[in-house]
C-alpha cells in the first residue's frame, strides 16, 4: 500500500501531456515585465528608475518587509518604465518594464554547468544567501523561502519534506526538473537541511512519475538522510498539510503552520533554486514553465526568464489554438484564468494551460441535491455545501464557526459536485469576509 493522506481527495484525469518533452530554454523576451509583487506579502520596493541600465541577476527591487522578497532583473537592458501592468493575478499592479539588450550577466554569477557538491556556507550564510536571491516557494504559493528556513522561536524543525507531488493535472514542470536536474535538486535539499539543522528529508513523489521516483532514488543513495517516498496518486496531495499527513502521518492542527508538527515543506523547484543561489550565486531569475492543453500543438516545458510575456511561450509551443476558450496560469484545479496573453511569467507561474471552447465553459448550475459528495471529498473535513449557503446568506459568524478559514481552496468540492454549484467561489468569499472580520476584531 502506497502512502497517501486519509481524508477526502479526488482523482481528476491526469492529462500529463508534456511529461516526455525535455526542458528547453525559452528565447529571451524583447521586453521583460517584472512585477514587484511576485510573492505573498508586501510588494518589493523598486531600486531602479526609467533609463537605468541593468544586467542579468542585478537586484531591481528590494524586499519591503518581513514577508517580502527581493526581485532581480532576469534580462539585461534599459529600464523603460515602472508602471501598473496587468499580471496573472487579474489586477493591474506595479511592474518594472525593461527593454532587453543582449544577455549581459553579472560577473559574480557562476554560469557553468558543473555540479558543485561541496556545501561550504554555514547555516546562517545559507539563509542570507537564499534571502538575497529572492527565492520564494515555486510550487505556486510563492511564500518567501527564507522565512520558512528560520522557524519561530520555541519551534524546531525535525524533518524536511520536499514536494515533488505535482498533483495538479497537466503540469509537468516539477516532473521534468526532477528528471533533468535531479542531482542539483538533491544537493539543494542537503543545503536546506543544513540551514534548518535537520538530518532527515523525504522527497514525496506521486506514483504516476515512476521515472522520477527511480532517478531520484538512485541519486539519493549517495546522499545521507535524503529519501524518496512514493505516494498514491490523489489530489490535493501537494497541499502542505496533506503532504505532511501522507509522508510522516502527522496532522497540522487548524490555524497553525507545519512547523507545529516539526515539518518544513519545500517544493522541489525551490530546492533547485536554492542550489543555484547558494552554490552558483545565481538569484531566482528563471523557472520551468509547462505550456500545455489538449489543443496545444506541442505541449512543452520551457526554462523561462521571469518577466517573459506568456504569448511568447505559447507561440513557441505551436501558437494559440483557434478554439481557445480559456487560459489558466497554473494547474486546472487551483490555477487562475488569465485575462490576457500578454501577462508576464512570474516566480509563481508553474504552467500555462489552454482550454478549448467547450472545456472553458462551466456547466449550468443546478439545485443542490444534498448528495454529500462535497463533504466526502473535502481533504480538510469541512462541509462545503453549508459554507456556500452561509456565504450566500451572508451569515459570516456561522461561516467562521464552520471552520471556513481551514479551507485550502483545493477545489475538490466543486470538481466533484454533480450539480456544478460554484461552491469554492462562495467559500472564498466567505473566507475573505471572515478574514476581514477576524483582523478587525484583533485590532
Amino acid at each position, binding site marked *: 500500500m502506497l502512502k497517501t493522506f486519509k481524508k477526502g481527495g479526488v482523482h481528476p484525469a491526469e492529462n500529463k501531456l508534456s511529461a516526455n518533452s525535455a526542458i528547453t530554454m525559452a528565447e529571451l523576451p524583447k521586453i521583460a515585465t517584472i512585477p514587484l509583487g511576485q510573492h505573498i506579502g508586501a510588494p518589493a520596493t523598486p531600486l531602479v528608475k526609467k533609463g537605468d541600465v541593468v544586467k542579468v541577476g542585478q537586484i531591481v527591487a528590494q524586499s519591503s518587509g518581513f514577508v517580502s522578497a527581493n526581485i532581480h532583473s532576469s534580462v539585461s537592458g534599459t529600464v523603460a518604465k515602472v508602471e501598473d501592468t496587468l499580471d496573472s493575478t487579474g489586477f493591474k499592479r506595479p511592474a518594472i518594464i525593461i527593454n532587453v539588450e543582449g544577455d549581459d550577466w553579472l560577473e559574480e554569477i557562476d554560469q557553468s554547468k558543473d555540479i558543485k557538491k561541496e556545501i561550504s556556507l554555514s547555516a546562517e550564510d545559507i539563509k542570507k544567501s537564499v534571502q538575497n536571491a529572492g527565492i520564494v516557494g515555486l510550487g505556486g504559493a510563492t511564500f518567501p523561502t527564507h522565512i520558512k528556513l528560520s522557524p519561530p522561536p520555541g519551534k524546531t524543525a525535525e524533518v524536511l519534506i520536499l514536494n515533488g507531488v505535482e498533483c495538479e493535472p497537466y503540469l509537468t514542470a516539477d516532473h521534468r526538473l526532477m528528471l533533468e536536474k535531479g542531482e542539483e535538486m538533491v544537493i539543494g535539499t542537503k543545503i536546506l537541511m543544513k540551514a534548518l539543522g535537520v538530518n532527515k528529508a523525504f522527497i514525496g513523489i506521486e506514483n504516476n512519475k515512476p521515472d522520477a521516483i527511480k532517478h531520484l532514488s538512485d541519486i539519493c543513495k549517495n546522499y545521507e538522510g535524503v529519501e524518496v517516498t512514493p505516494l498514491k496518486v490523489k489530489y490535493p496531495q501537494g497541499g502542505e498539510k496533506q503532504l505532511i499527513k501522507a509522508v510522516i502521518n502527522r496532522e497540522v492542527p487548524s490555524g497553525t503552520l507545519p512547523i507545529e508538527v516539526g515539518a518544513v515543506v519545500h517544493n522541489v523547484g525551490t530546492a533547485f533554486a536554492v542550489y543555484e543561489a547558494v552554490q552558483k550565486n545565481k538569484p531566482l531569475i528563471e523557472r520551468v514553465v509547462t505550456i500545455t492543453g489538449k489543443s496545444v500543438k506541442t505541449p512543452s516545458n520551457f526554462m523561462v526568464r521571469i518577466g517573459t510575456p506568456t504569448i511568447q511561450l505559447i507561440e513557441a509551443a505551436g501558437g494559440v489554438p483557434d478554439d481557445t476558450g480559456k487560459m489558466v496560469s497554473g494547474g*486546472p484545479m487551483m490555477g*487562475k*484564468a488569465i485575462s490576457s496573453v500578454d501577462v508576464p511569467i512570474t516566480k509563481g507561474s508553474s504552467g500555462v494551460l489552454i482550454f478549448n471552447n467547450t472545456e*472553458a465553459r462551466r456547466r449550468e448550475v443546478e439545485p443542490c441535491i444534498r448528495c454529500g459528495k462535497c463533504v466526502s471529498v473535502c481533504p480538510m473535513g469541512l462541509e462545503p455545501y453549508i459554507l456556500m449557503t452561509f456565504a450566500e446568506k451572508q451569515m459570516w459568524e456561522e461561516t467562521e464557526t464552520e471552520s471556513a478559514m481551514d479551507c485550502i481552496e483545493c477545489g475538490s468540492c466543486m470538481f466533484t459536485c454533480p*450539480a*456544478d454549484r460554484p461552491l*469554492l467561489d462562495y467559500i472564498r468569499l466567505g473566507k475573505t469576509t471572515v478574514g476581514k472580520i477576524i483582523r478587525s476584531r484583533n485590532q
Partner: protein
Amino acid sequence: MNRLINISPSPHVAGEYSVKKIMYGVVLALLPALAASVYFFGTGAIIVTLVSIASCVAFEYLIQKFIIKTTPKISDGSAILTGLLLAFNVPSNLPIWIIIIGALISIGVGKMSFGGLGQNPFNPALVGRVFLLISFPVQMTSWPKPLGFLTGYTDAVTGPTALGKLKEGIMNGETVSNIMQDIPSHMEAFYGHMGGSMGEISALALILGFAFMLYRKIITWHIPVILVGTVFAFTGILHFANPEQFAHPVFHILTGGVMLGAIFMATDMVTSPMNPKGMIIFAVGIGVITVLIRSFGAYPEGISFAILIMNAFVPIINKYVKPSRFGEEVKNGQ
C-alpha cells in the same frame, strides 16, 4: 485572437458526476427489482409502473410550468425516479386513479411544495405511499399473490403479506412457529416469491441494484448496511428473548420493505444526512423504529413511517453531527 476568452475562478475542470447521471443511475439500479416484480406479478406491475412514472413526470411538468412558473426541468430524471419508487411501494393491482392521486401527493406535496428538487425534507415517494396507505387502506393492503408473469392486471388473487400474517397471528394469540408454517421460506423470500408491494419482494434483485450503485459510487455503504444490520440485531435480540412472540431476524430483513427501504428509500440523497457519522445515526434510527412498529405497533410494516420520521431528524443531525476536521487527530503517536 479576436474572441473573448473566459475568466473564472478555479477549479477549471469538473468531475464526471452530474445530477442526471446520478438520477438515471438509480433508475438503472432499480431495473432488476422491476424485472423481478414483472416476473412475479405480471402485467399489473408494468401498468402500475408506467402510470406512476408518467403521472409523476406530468405533475412535475405542470407544476413547474403553471404554478411555480419556471422552465420545466423534467429531464433531470428525479420525477422518473420518484414515480418508479412510488410504484415499487404499492401493490401491483392498485387501481390507476389511486396511483395518480399518489403521484400528485408525491410530487405536489412531497416535493414541489417545498421548492422542488433538493428542497424537500421528506422522501416524496414515501409521502405519496403513506398518504395512500392511510387514505385507501383496503386497496393498499390487498396484496396480489405472486402468480407469475402471465397474471393479468385485474385478475390478481390477493392475500396477506408474510408480515401481515405474522401480525394477525400474534394478535390472535398464535405462536410464531405455528404462523411460520404457511409463510414463504427464507429462500423464497430472498428470490421474491411472496406477496407484497411491487418492488420490495425480491431481496436478490435489490441487492444487485445496491452493488451497481456502490460500483458507480452513487451511494455509500453506510445507510443500507447499518440499517439492515440494526433491524437484524434488534429483531435478533427480541427473537432470542422470546422466540414464540417474535420472528427470526432473517425473516425480518427479507420480508416487507426493509431491503427496498434500506437500499433505495433511506439513501435518497436529498433526505438523508450529509456525512457518514450522520448516516449511521440516521440508519440506526430507522432500523429501531421499523422494528418497534413491526413488533409492537398496529401496522404489520413500519419502514415507510420509520424513514419519514428519521427524515424529519435529518436537519438536526446535519447541524450537530459534523465530519471530523483535518487536524483534530493530533500528532501521530501522542
